[in-house]
């Protein structure tokens, strides 16, 4: 064979091999129009209005029916959605948004600025917990000077606004549907009209929610899918079985124990994210009821921190999916997360020493006994009542195990969410608990409520520890008014240093979700509630 022909053949073979190797990727990259995706959700959403609740179940099922003014990209930065451009004026006190033209509601009515004004004033600040907690106090007013302009005016500079305008934090609902009605009982909650990429076909309670493509969606060419079905499968293990069996294409939550198995399987893909429709950037946090005499002594709280081996929580409960919390603010908000803080390290000897010093003596088997502890009668056993959602039982068990080793007795009290919230926040009837506190996209949204003394009260998932520190309050107030990011970083750092010293809470692990889907599909966006907006499936 001549050299030329050998060369040609080699090149040909190489090209064939190369194209074979990359062919699947290329076919995968080119979106295919059509098909239906079945996604599994854990519980019945109850209704399909995400503007009146922060419930994860409702948001997972309904966000694809709506839009926010902005969306968020993979890094969490704002991108245009219903708003095509924006300006920040007067040092962050005024935000002006220009809305897209030609957007229609699912029933054909044109979308206007009046919808935005109505949604914020009549729905979000009244019923959406995070919006109410963050914007409620500082929003001066919203104007809609024309159909395509919305202006937010604040009482003081407000930094986080752009991060809480997506469909999770501020979905826009239709004024012509909800005006003059009670948003909580309006029947449209079961038969929603939104602007989103999908429209509702049917909602069969307890079984599934069927969606179909919105043919007049304002993003040209989207969505690729003809339809989307949300199937309610309460058991995560069964969800995985359904995925493997081909009955389901997308899981919101791939349980830890199954991840190693599925990640090696070429039939499936997975992606990790700190975002969850119920709230992002969540940290499993142990609260100490500072009103209880047992926990008033800082040494006891420090002893608890030293007795806990948080790495064990990460390995045994999360199967490595997550991070040990290195600071009170999640590492998923890198500019606010304080690196290098000295959280108490696992040290049983130190824990025992602290407890002895605080007056809790080891006398025989079982929990320690009080000898000279202020506010506690001599002879009382050191026992902590630990409240938790039943889904967090493992946390309780590990806490009990690890604290038991240094002589702290733990009594577990599982409580359903409906009962947990009033017991902890209204009645304050607990010693300690574990809560998944979600920081949200900005500390102003999900962190302030944990530490500010004004947030002690019956509203659920606020300042459970009843922590009062005037300096911390002042720092938070200043951070609320500040817009420059560098300055905010410094302020939040000071806050974190203070609370780490005082330990009103102990931050266990940062949780992430792992989404999983069949490899024949692609384009899922794990970091947002609009997970299927750009998804497509082959075959």
């Amino acid at each position, binding site marked *: 064979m001549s050299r030329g022909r050998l060369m040609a053949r080699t090149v040909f073979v190489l090209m064939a091999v190369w194209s074979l190797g990359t062919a699947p990727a290329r076919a995968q990259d080119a979106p295919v129009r059509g098909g239906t995706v079945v996604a599994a959700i854990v519980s019945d959403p109850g209704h399909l209005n995400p503007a009146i609740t922060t419930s994860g179940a409702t948001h997972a099922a309904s966000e694809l029916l709506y839009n926010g003014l902005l969306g968020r990209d993979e890094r969490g930065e704002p991108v245009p959605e219903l708003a095509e451009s924006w300006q920040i004026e007067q040092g962050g006190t005024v935000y002006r948004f220009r809305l897209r033209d030609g957007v229609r509601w699912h029933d054909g009515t044109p979308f206007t600025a009046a919808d935005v004004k109505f949604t914020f004033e009549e729905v979000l600040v009244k019923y959406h917990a995070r919006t109410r907690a963050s914007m409620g106090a500082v929003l001066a007013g919203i104007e809609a000077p024309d159909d395509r302009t919305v202006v937010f005016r604040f009482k003081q500079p407000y930094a986080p606004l752009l991060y809480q305008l997506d469909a999770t934090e501020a979905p826009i609902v239709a004024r012509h549907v909800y005006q003059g009605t009670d948003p909580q009982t309006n029947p449209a909650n079961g038969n929603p009209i939104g602007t989103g990429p999908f429209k509702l076909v049917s909602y069969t309670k307890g079984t599934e929610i069927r969606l179909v493509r919105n043919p007049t969606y304002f993003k040209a060419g989207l969505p690729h899918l003809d339809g989307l079905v949300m199937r309610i499968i309460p058991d995560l*293990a069964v969800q995985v*079985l359904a995925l493997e069996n081909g009955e389901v294409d997308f899981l919101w939550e791939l349980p830890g*124990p199954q991840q190693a198995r599925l990640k090696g399987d070429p039939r499936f893909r997975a992606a990790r994210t700190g975002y969850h429709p119920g709230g992002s950037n969540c940290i499993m946090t142990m609260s100490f009821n500072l009103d209880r005499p047992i926990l008033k002594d800082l040494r006891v709280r420090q002893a608890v921190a030293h007795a806990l081996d948080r790495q064990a929580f990460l390995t045994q409960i999360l199967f490595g999916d997550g991070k040990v919390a290195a600071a009170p603010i999640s590492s998923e908000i890198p500019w606010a997360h304080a690196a290098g803080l000295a959280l108490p390290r696992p040290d049983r000897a130190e824990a025992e020493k602290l407890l002895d010093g605080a007056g809790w003596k080891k006398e025989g088997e079982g929990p320690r006994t009080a000898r000279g502890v202020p506010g506690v009668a001599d002879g009382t056993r050191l026992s902590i009542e630990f409240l938790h959602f039943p889904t967090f039982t493992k946390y309780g068990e590990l806490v009990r195990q690890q604290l038991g080793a240094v002589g702290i007795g733990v009594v577990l009290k599982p409580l359903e969410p409906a009962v947990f919230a009033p017991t902890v926040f209204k009645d304050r009837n607990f010693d300690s608990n574990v809560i998944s506190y979600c920081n949200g996209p900005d500390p102003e949204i999900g962190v302030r409520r944990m530490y500010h003394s004004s947030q002690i009260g019956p509203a659920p998932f606020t300042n459970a520890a009843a922590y009062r520190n005037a300096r911390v309050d002042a720092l938070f107030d200043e951070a609320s008014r500040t817009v420059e990011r560098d300055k905010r970083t410094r302020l939040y750092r000071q806050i974190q240093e203070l609370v780490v010293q005082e330990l009103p809470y102990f931050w266990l692990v940062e949780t992430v979700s792992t989404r999983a889907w069949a490899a024949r599909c692609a384009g899922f966006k794990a970091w947002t509630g609009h997970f299927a907006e750009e998804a497509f499936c082959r075959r």
Partner: protein
Amino acid sequence: MPGWIPASDINRRIWRSRAGRAGVLLTGGLLAAALVAAHVGPPDPFASVGPPLSAPTLSHPMGTDDLGRDLLSGVAHGTRTSLVLAVIVSMLTGIIGVMVGALAAWEGGTLDDLLMRVTEFVQVVPRFFLAVLVIALFGPGLERLALLLAVTSWPWIARVVRAEALSLKRREFVEAARALGAGGPRILLREVLPNLLPPVLVVVSLNAAGVILIEAGLSFLGLGDPDVVSLGYLANNAQRFLRVAWWMAAFPGAAIAAAVLGLNLLGDGLNDALNPRFES
């Protein structure tokens, strides 16, 4: 029941019945194993003693769960809890059932009618769902469950006791005792009750099997007592790990089946022993 067998013969007859032999061996064996293992193995079934999710090995014959807890210890403690629960409930139901049934049979008349009405009513109440409701409203707890099950499981025993007592009432030895001047309660205590024991035991053992299944079912729904290791608790725990750690579900499930089977066989054996036509 046709025929009448001296109480002293019962033991021998149970042993002769194949079912009875199996039942005694299985139940007795389980109980013994549970009691022994609970003392010999790691004292606290909640303690982490090994690598999590490891398959059965020599050091951990039933493997470990997701928190590294030894499953053999868990199953032993769980079996003990389930069996103890079954025994306690059985004793309570036995006492209530015997009292109600004997009283109804002995006194007769309107008291009998009334007691039978009450019995019918309690029999209709679905125990499992009542337990679900009560735990939802009052919270979980093993003592609470035991009490609830005791208070709802006695009708069957009461009926059997009443039927037995009625037939015994007419027997010659009772007539004889009465002729000799013995009073009602005395006859009841010394002549009738001892002969009620075998049929009651049959029902009680079958009932006990049901108690174990109910506890397992409740724990599976997440309504079990979180501070106690029970077989249902272990089965519930295993649900998430079905594909990754089959041993977490297999052994507790097998233990439940074994306990229920053993108690059923025991009941069968007792039944056989009481049936005068039965010859092994």
